[in-house]
């Protein structure tokens, strides 16, 4: 059982110093020019291409790949960023195997799609290395917009608003802009401080002021923002990790995966992070995989990911599941946590009940149990939206399924408030979807703002 006997073992610096660098090297090292050209040649330049259809931000993929193949990578980057200002980060974190690459006709033809994500990385790397500003701002509209949350949705929205000539103030509760790009992405997917480089590029356009350390609900109120600005965009993400609903969740060593990943991303020295010898992760999504793999890479001996349903129901993509397994993570399906086992205020193990899918796909316990020893238990069973200061009573935004209700353009129930990203109902919890939400909302806001005062443009003279 492992719940008795050996002492609880949580320690930092489990690996030789050099090993950290190797373990957290780029998961997909960038394509050099030659492999990029070979790969670009594989694209058929489809008409009305399925990959574009599958991309939440509608990047003209065949065009940017053609631009790479003709030796015009800067043009390629422009094609990408025009549609998706975070094309650089999306190239690193998008689950392309379930988006553009899944529907690539060469996947249909040969079971081997064009490496769209890697090509996108190649093109955007060229642009970021150069730093060229490819956007210009429309003449100032005189309108001011508040964007709450400097994550993918918020920054995307702010950038598009700035391009369209509006003046934007972005508020974020944390110290740095970037949201989950900065605090939530697995370390081996975004190296060399890319989230900050990308944010800096976005802000270099001008017209966007970032105010950090301001949280909606405590430091800001929606009501006040609505009074001070012509429009408001909410891109606040999700607030907190779901609880297991078990006794003993306050035991030492029962940790929110999201918090730990954030610490990991901000750690200057990975060897300083405390790591359990035996780690159990509960959940079946990307966060669960991220924390399981990173625990392993930080030197945990045994990492077991336990998910209450089967492989097909896991939110993590097939690629991510494979990554976990090749990293040495053991994945156990059809088991749900039943009891946390503590000793002297710290977790020592966790008991699971086996499950099965009953009638109508409903999950049911079988009564059979087993116990895993655990120095650390990570909770990664999804995050929930915390509507701090937005949905209080009749003045707030309407919620739906616990998140902000929006229409197709990101409009909330309040006429001057838009929202997008993970905090809105019906979202996909993907970076790329958040970027699209921000962009679409900005376009919608622009239309609404211009309708308010069509003659404000400085160009009209007279």
């Amino acid at each position, binding site marked *: 059982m492992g719940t008795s006997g050996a002492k609880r073992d949580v320690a930092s610096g489990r690996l030789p110093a050099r090993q950290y660098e190797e373990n957290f090297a780029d998961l997909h090292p960038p394509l050099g020019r030659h492999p990029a*050209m*070979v790969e670009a*040649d*594989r694209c*058929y*330049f*489809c*008409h*009305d*291409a*399925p990959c574009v259809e599958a991309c939440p931000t509608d990047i003209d993929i065949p065009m940017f790949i053609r631009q790479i193949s003709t030796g015009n990578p800067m043009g390629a980057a422009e094609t990408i960023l025009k549609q998706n200002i975070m094309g650089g980060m999306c190239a690193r974190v998008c689950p392309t195997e379930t988006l553009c690459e899944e529907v690539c*006709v*060469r996947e*249909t*033809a040969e079971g081997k799609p064009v490496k769209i994500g890697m090509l996108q990385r190649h093109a955007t790397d060229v642009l970021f290395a150069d730093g060229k500003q490819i956007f210009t701002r429309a003449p100032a509209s005189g309108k001011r917009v508040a964007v709450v949350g400097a994550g993918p949705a918020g920054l995307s929205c702010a950038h598009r608003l700035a391009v369209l000539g509006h003046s934007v103030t972005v508020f974020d509760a944390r110290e740095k802009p970037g949201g989950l790009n900065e605090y939530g992405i697995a370390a081996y997917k975004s190296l060399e401080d890319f989230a900050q480089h990308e944010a800096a590029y976005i802000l270099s356009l001008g017209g966007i002021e970032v105010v950090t350390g301001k949280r909606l609900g405590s430091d800001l109120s929606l009501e006040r923002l609505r009074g001070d600005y012509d429009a408001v965009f909410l891109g606040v993400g999700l607030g907190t990790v779901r609880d297991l609903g078990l006794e003993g969740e306050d035991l030492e060593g029962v940790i929110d995966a999201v918090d730990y990943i954030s610490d990991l991303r901000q750690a200057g020295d990975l060897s300083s992070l405390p790591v359990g010898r035996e780690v159990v992760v509960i959940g079946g999504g990307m966060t669960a995989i991220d924390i399981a793999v990173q625990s392993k890479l930080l030197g945990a001996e045994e990492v077991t990911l336990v998910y209450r349903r089967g492989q097909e129901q896991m939110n993590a993509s097939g690629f991510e599941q494979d990554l976990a397994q090749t990293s040495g993570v053991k994945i156990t399906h059809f088991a749900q946590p039943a009891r946390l086992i503590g000793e002297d205020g710290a977790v020592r193990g966790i008991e699971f009940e086996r499950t099965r899918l009953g009638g109508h796909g409903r999950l049911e316990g079988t009564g059979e149990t087993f116990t895993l020893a655990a120095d650390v238990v990570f909770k990664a069973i999804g995050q929930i939206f915390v509507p701090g200061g937005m949905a209080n009573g009749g003045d707030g935004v309407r919620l739906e399924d616990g998140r902000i209700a929006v229409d197709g353009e990101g409009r909330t129930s309040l006429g001057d408030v838009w929202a997008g990203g993970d905090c809105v109902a019906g979202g996909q919890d993907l970076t790329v979807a958040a970027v699209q939400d921000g962009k679409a909302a900005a376009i919608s806001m622009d239309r609404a703002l211009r309708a308010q005062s069509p003659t404000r443009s400085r160009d009209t003279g007279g």
Partner: protein
Amino acid sequence: MTDLRSDFVGIKSPNPFWLASAPPTDKEYNVVRAFKAGWGGVVWKTLGEDPPIVNVNGPRYGAIHGPDRRMLGFNNIELITDRPLDLNLREIKKVKREWPDRALVVSLMVPCEEGAWKRILPLVEDTGADGIELNFGCPHGMSERGMGAAVGQVPEYVGMVARWCKQNTRMPVIVKLTPNITDVRNPARAAKEAGADAVSLINTINSIAGIDLDTMAPDPATDGKGTHGGYCGPAVKPIALSMISEIARDPETQGLPISGIGGISNWRDAAEFMALGSGTVQVCTAAMAYGFRIVEDMTEGLKNWMGEKGYTRLDDFVGKAVPSVTDWQYLNLNYIVKARIDQDLCIKCGRCHIACEDTSHQAITQTKDGQRYFEVDDTECVGCNLCVSVCPVEGCMTLERLTEGADPRTGKPIDPDYANWTTHPNNPNRVAAE
């Protein structure tokens, strides 16, 4: 048993695959390697008078690349051999003695004076070589000095030199033709009339491979300047096939043996050249791109294909496609085809649709019941073959002949009888149909 042995104007080789006169056949070392690899023959790189010419010390080659940097077209400015005549002659003699079963033809280029030819022919004859090929084709360098293509472009000169050679040697004479001419039949006729045993074609085509946009100089360039070279490789194959067909079906040159050259890269290309009347084929660019081993697949592939088709000797299919080459005016205008898409093979790239929509006849739809689905609209399809050409999946798109009912595009009943332009009502010069 399938027999690949070739007897071309009395020159015997174990297979019809010869290496063309070019860098791969410049010296004993290469030629022996080629024979070891299985090549049936070589045309030794063109000999000239001493002192030998000199080559540039800058780049000699330029290339056009397709996807994955496959070399589609190749351009060169190399001249004839830059080695002393005597050295070449000694090596030729030695190689022929050691490889008696292989064809060894010697390419020649000397000034347009009978004396020059009279001097070199006995020297070549003395090597025991099987024949000579007159290089009337090189379009670069030598042509500036009145040789190569400068001769090949003037049928009278072609005939004159061929005649001198026939009069001064017992060796078979093959005249190599330049494609840099308006009508290739004229030099071919001249060669035949002069008594030449055969023609070989095509030599390379005037070309500049590209322009370096940084230096604003042609590619390849020597010290910032470039000159046109000779173009070859897969890209020139259609030009060669057409010229060969012209000679093969011209009443005046019909039956004149042809050694086919021009972008031949594999057994299939070779079979096509032979079907248009080439008794042997000559290869250069493919060998320069991949080395001599490609001949293994050429011989085996040709043998397997011949076996499948029931051909036992090369003569069984050489020239078999010639009768199918005709003038446009004799094409059957009652032959109606429509494009077809094999939905099981279709990968839904949409290339057929956009090609047809943007540049042709708007005959391929892209959705059906709201789904991505490509289908030919017979009421618009003219059967042009563009979609078949752009489809990335071989066999997915085909043309199907309509044999009954009416053509949905024109509404006219399908006429099973042959009828061509010469009798068409729209032809102001029509003749009455039979």
